């Protein structure tokens, strides 16, 4: 069987292009399947294979999640059907898998014509997958349903094929069964992608328009922008324009990833590749924006661009105040790579100088914090994350609260909190406990659907603030790990909220202030005060702890003064050991934050995060 030569970037007939993504839950084997496709199409040979080739960042690899999408070009020789022997070009666009990055997911989907819906044959579809599936259906993608891990003893392909068919329509028998681990069914899937996914449509003679679906900072190259060309051609000789801002950049390089970057002259209609323009910050090359050429450029951008708004705020403070400049520089560097990260300096009476940082969600917060600590060697204290509240005062003024300590004291007319529409997928056995949990978090049931005989989809409206701390953990523990969760912000609601302050020795510690529902305020205050009593070591003086709403104290605890802090014996042989202990204690003290006269350990600030759940 002779094959035609492999089509080159910039000279690929859109008819042989297939752009697709894989929609899957964490652990359902997306990265393994991607790896197998890379191997099968020969772009990576077996011995170069690192497990999960496409997940670049260490944190992604360790956590097994994909944060940043990538795209890889794979030539594939069709092996079945009338067109067997034809060389196709498959562009696999990796999508982030977490709710925090829904916007990025939607942009990645826009760059495709088809999606492989990958579901673990032992677990069935999960809420986030379902959410992304709906996004894909909304984006008019052709869906190829696939059950993975059919080699597992616990696999129930019939059951879950039925479930998938119930969701997307079609026949359960059409759900392809593969094992990404053993490679079984992978070739069939590649053939199916060619058959099912439509080739891209676009006007090759129109002014160029390309969608940015990812933008990554590289230390050596500056920002690498991933694009999908919709119309016309992007050439390495062009000067390009970002249509949202009108900013013009010199094009330094155009290319495709296969799976290492390969320079190319041009990118034509339907092609997926990267641009390098010398831009140093991803903010200048934002996901969702449209790239055109500076001369004879397009006038209408592609639709759907928006700037993601932070949903969650948290204060980050260096444990050692001297590290403030390092933290500032580190945030600047992270922002190069993270267009969604917003921050501004703030100061706290308790914690000194730091930053209030806006995040897309809690995972985003955790990732940023971890990267700051790991990559910049910083020790940080983060305050309890909070959502954004809108406060209407009686005098008509409106205040946006991103930090509980800034909650106004004056006459408040109404407070609005953000709400989400949460979708929980679970075996039907757990309906009761799930509803109980959602009610305790002030949820309102929207509806419930059976996906199959024994699996349900439960929808709730929940205050976003109520699901931030540990809702997911509580959900998982109450459902033995079977339930999955997805949510999307849907607006705001008025609520009876109050600010609970914590006072140490009569002084408010701003870092412990929280905004909670009035009904939960008492339980919250009691729980936090008793937790702080456990966590703050005894000092040389008595430390009263109070929780208060305004001037009204709702809980109190007392840390008795320490009376004994001495090791009784000290012989000749003890001296070195005792000195080392002293040095260790001094180090330990550095990990304490002085709040007024009180030494508060770092853990106390972290623990404040987990007391949100008074009903647990």
């Amino acid at each position, binding site marked *: 069987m002779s094959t035609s030569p492999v089509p080159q970037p910039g000279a690929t007939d859109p008819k042989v292009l297939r752009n697709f993504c894989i929609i899957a839950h964490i652990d359902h084997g997306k990265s393994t399947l991607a790896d197998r496709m890379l191997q099968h199409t020969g772009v990576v040979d077996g011995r170069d294979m690192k497990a999960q080739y496409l997940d670049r960042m260490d944190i992604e690899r360790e956590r097994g999640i994909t944060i940043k999408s990538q795209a890889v070009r794979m030539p594939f020789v069709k092996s079945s059907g009338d067109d067997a022997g034809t060389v196709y070009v498959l562009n696999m666009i990796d999508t982030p898998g977490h709710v925090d990055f829904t916007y990025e997911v939607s942009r990645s989907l826009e760059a495709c014509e088809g999606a492989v819906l990958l579901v673990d044959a032992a677990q069935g579809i999960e809420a986030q997958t379902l959410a992304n599936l709906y996004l894909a259906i909304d984006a008019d993608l052709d869906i190829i349903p696939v059950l993975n891990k059919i080699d597992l003893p616990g696999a129930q392909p019939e059951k879950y094929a039925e479930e998938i068919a119930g969701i997307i329509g079609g026949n359960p028998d059409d759900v392809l069964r593969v094992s990404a681990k053993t490679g079984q069914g992978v070739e069939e899937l590649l053939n199916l992608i060619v058959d099912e996914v439509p080739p891209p449509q676009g006007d090759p003679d129109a002014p160029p328009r390309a969608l940015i679906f990812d933008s990554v900072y590289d230390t050596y190259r500056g920002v690498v922008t991933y694009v999908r060309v919709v119309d016309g051609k992007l050439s390495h000789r062009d000067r390009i324009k970002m249509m949202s801002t009108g900013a013009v950049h010199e094009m330094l390089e155009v290319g495709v990833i296969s799976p290492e970057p390969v320079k190319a002259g041009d990118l034509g209609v339907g092609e997926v590749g990267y641009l390098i323009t010398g831009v140093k910050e991803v903010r200048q090359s934002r996901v969702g924006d449209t790239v055109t050429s500076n001369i004879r450029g397009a006038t209408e951008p592609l639709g759907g661009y928006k700037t993601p708004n932070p949903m969650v705020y948290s204060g980050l403070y260096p444990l050692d105040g001297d590290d403030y400049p390092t933290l500032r520089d580190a945030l600047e560097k992270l922002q190069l790579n993270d267009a969604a990260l917003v921050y501004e300096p703030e100061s706290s009476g308790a914690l000194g100088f730091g930053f209030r940082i806006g995040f897309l969600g809690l995972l985003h917060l955790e990732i940023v914090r971890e990267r700051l600590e790991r990559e910049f060697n910083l020790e940080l204290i983060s305050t309890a994350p909070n959502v954004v509240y809108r406060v209407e005062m009686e005098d008509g003024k409106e205040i946006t609260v991103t930090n509980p300590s800034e909650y106004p004291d004056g006459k408040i007319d109404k407070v609005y909190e953000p709400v989400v529409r949460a979708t929980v997928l679970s075996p039907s056995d757990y309906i009761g406990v799930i509803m109980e949990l959602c009610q305790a978090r002030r949820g309102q049931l929207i509806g419930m659907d059976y996906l199959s005989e024994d699996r349900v989809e439960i929808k709730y409206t929940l205050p976003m603030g109520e699901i931030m701390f540990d809702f997911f953990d509580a959900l998982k523990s109450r459902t033995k790990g079977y339930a999955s969760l997805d949510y999307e912000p849907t607006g705001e609601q008025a609520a009876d909220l109050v600010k609970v302050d914590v006072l140490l020795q009569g002084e408010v510690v701003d870092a412990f202030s929280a905004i909670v529902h009035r009904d939960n305020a008492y339980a919250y205050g009691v729980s936090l005060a008793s937790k702080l009593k456990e966590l703050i070591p005894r000092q040389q003086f008595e430390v009263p702890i109070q929780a208060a709403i305004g001037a009204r104290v709702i809980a109190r605890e007392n840390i008795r003064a320490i009376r*004994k802090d*001495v*090791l009784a*014996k000290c*012989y*000749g042989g003890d*001296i070195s050991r005792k000195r080392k202990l*002293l040095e260790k204690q001094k180090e330990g*003290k550095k990990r304490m934050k002085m709040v007024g006269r009180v030494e508060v350990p770092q853990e106390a600030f972290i623990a404040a995060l987990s007391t949100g759940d008074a009903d647990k």
Partner: protein
Amino acid sequence: MPLTERSLSTLGHRPFGVYVHVPFCSVRCGYCDFNTYTADELGEGATRASYADTAILEIEQAGRELVGAPVVQTVFFGGGTPTQLPSADLVRILDAIRRTFGLADDVEVTTEANPDSVTPESLATLRTGGFTRISYGVQSAVPHVLATLDRTHDPAGVPQAVRWAREAGFEQLSVDLIYGTPGESVDDWRASIEQAIALEPDHISAYALIVEDGTAFARKVRRGEVVMPDDDETADKYVLADELFSAAGLGWYELSNWATDDAAQCRHNVLYWHSDNWLGIGPGAHSHIGGERWWNVKHPAAYAQRLAAGESPRHDGETIDTATARMEQIMLETRLRTGLDLGSLGAAAGAAVPGVVSRGLATREGDRLVLTRTGRLLADAVVRELVE
């Protein structure tokens, strides 16, 4: 690690003491983390019979190295239980020290002893051989407390052991007590204090029980088999001891040590606390000469082999630089009734002094900072403030 000129040069200017470690006990007490062994635990080459000869080898070896060593002011035999060795062996070791370095006319020679490990004869041999002071490990007067501590002696035998020591001619006699043992009530402790005072010693040491990592006792605590008393109660016990000892004419001179007068203090321990020079003999023993500190291999068999082969038993050591020496000085002198020399403090530490005084933890006596009773219980916290 050969001694430097610098450290040797201090030998002539500082009091010089010798510590002899005797690593034998009849039973291993659960709480004890000292380097000690029962008879069955040791193999070839490290028997009790050969121990004195081995220690003497080390003394002779050290004598060749410590050029310019002055006569010895204090000798302290600790352990372990030194009186597990025949008194004649202890005397032979002391003789070797005398032969090698010379003993000062007013030398203090102490041995620790268990009340049930002495006889009138053994005590007489020690006294005649040059020992001047006995320190009895009494620990408690209460049987259930002694049982928790794995101590074997009958508390009823203690007055007899004290009487024998007096009859043998020991004028200096210390009683060692432990408080804060799990299960010990405040009244139990009061009984121990009162029994100790009734023995009319010129010196009492009272140590709060420390749970040392790696001991059988620490494992029991970790498993919840015994529960350590609350720190506040242990603090109460300290206060009680200090009140009763003071009323009986025993004044504190270090935060865990009381004596009837200056002459009754344990000069050997004072030497440690003043960072003077001492030579440690025996497995695991620590030495300090002019800013050089070192310690011997821990196992008696390894120790004996080294010496038999003519090698140094030294295992490792450290050089104390000026900053570290200052830190140790603060750490040690703060614990003493004579107090910490304020003139020796740096600016930062000096700045912490008014706070320590205003909180009632210490008083200024001339140019010295002396802990109050409350301050003694918080001595480590005070030290941390002063070294910052």
